[in-house]
């Protein structure tokens, strides 16, 4: 699990980062996650698990600055 959504699929290297917000938007509008992924053209199950298993922890971490 990553803090922020990965740019590429860990297994096949396909670019998936650009589709993350469209996926979240689709799921929040009440569509089934699998259907949203089909519409976005995410075919392989390695890429699909990247979306359905992601927990966007950055939304919480972002309230704390890193000590520099």
């Amino acid at each position, binding site marked *: 699990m990553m803090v922020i959504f990965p*740019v590429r699929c860990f297994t*096949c*290297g*396909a*670019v998936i*980062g*650009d589709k993350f917000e469209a996926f979240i938007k689709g799921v929040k509008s009440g569509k089934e996650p699998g259907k949203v992924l089909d519409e976005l053209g995410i075919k392989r199950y390695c890429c699909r698990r990247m979306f359905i298993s992601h927990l966007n922890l*950055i939304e919480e971490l972002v309230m704390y600055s890193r000590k520099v």
Partner: protein
Amino acid sequence: MSYSVTVVEKGRNYVRLLFRGVPLALLNAVRRASMEYVPTMAIDFVTFNNNTSPLHDEIIAHRLGLTPLYSEEAIRKYRGPEECVDVSPEVSTDCYAVLSLQESTGDGEVKTVYSSDLKPVTDPDVKPVYDKIPLIVLGPKQEVSLDAYARLGRGVDHIKWSPVTTAVVTYSARLNVDLGLCTLCGKCAEVCPRGALTIEGGTIVAREEKCILCRQCVRACPVEAISLGFKEDEFYLDIESSGALRPETVIVEAFKVITSKLDAFLSALNSIKAQSGG
């Protein structure tokens, strides 16, 4: 020897070709060359002026590296990967293209920084392919300011330089049903995941182009009427591009790489031949 190439399927970042009469070894060389040797632009060096975001410099640099950059023009414009390894990024404009990212947030503001916020400085042709990749998220009163240096490289050194995400060669199926044995029970059509076998109008129809060689039908057939093999001189090549280069460019460049490698090999052989006096 006669050979042919047919485009079976084509999308913006995807192509499926059917080669006839081309040896498997050559296609596999093309596949490997497109993954490992076709050059593309990718960010290789990042200088941080300021970073108060929750993400470490290294994580941001890694994400920038994996972000595909347009390389169609760049592969002709910039010096090759081998010439740029020891060149200092800040001084060289024929090796490196510079991009910059400057984002900050006010009080109580939370903002996502996208790949489209990464702006080209020296070369407008070298810019991120996708606009909507979330690179960083900034919380209230945070700032990121950095310069990124992209150069040509090869997938064999780091996967960020590979122009393809998947490159696969597959066999073409030869699906035979012995009509003398077949009882039209339909068990094969039931188990076939791709609909390559169907019973239509009192006979069995095999669509070889749909078959993925899973052998479920061979196992399911109670009278062993189905034989499944592959064609010796027909192969599919699937190329899925990262977006840095168009898939057709990848294949053409892969052939160029193989040709130049063979030329280098031949001239090395010739020099040995000349040395041994024969």
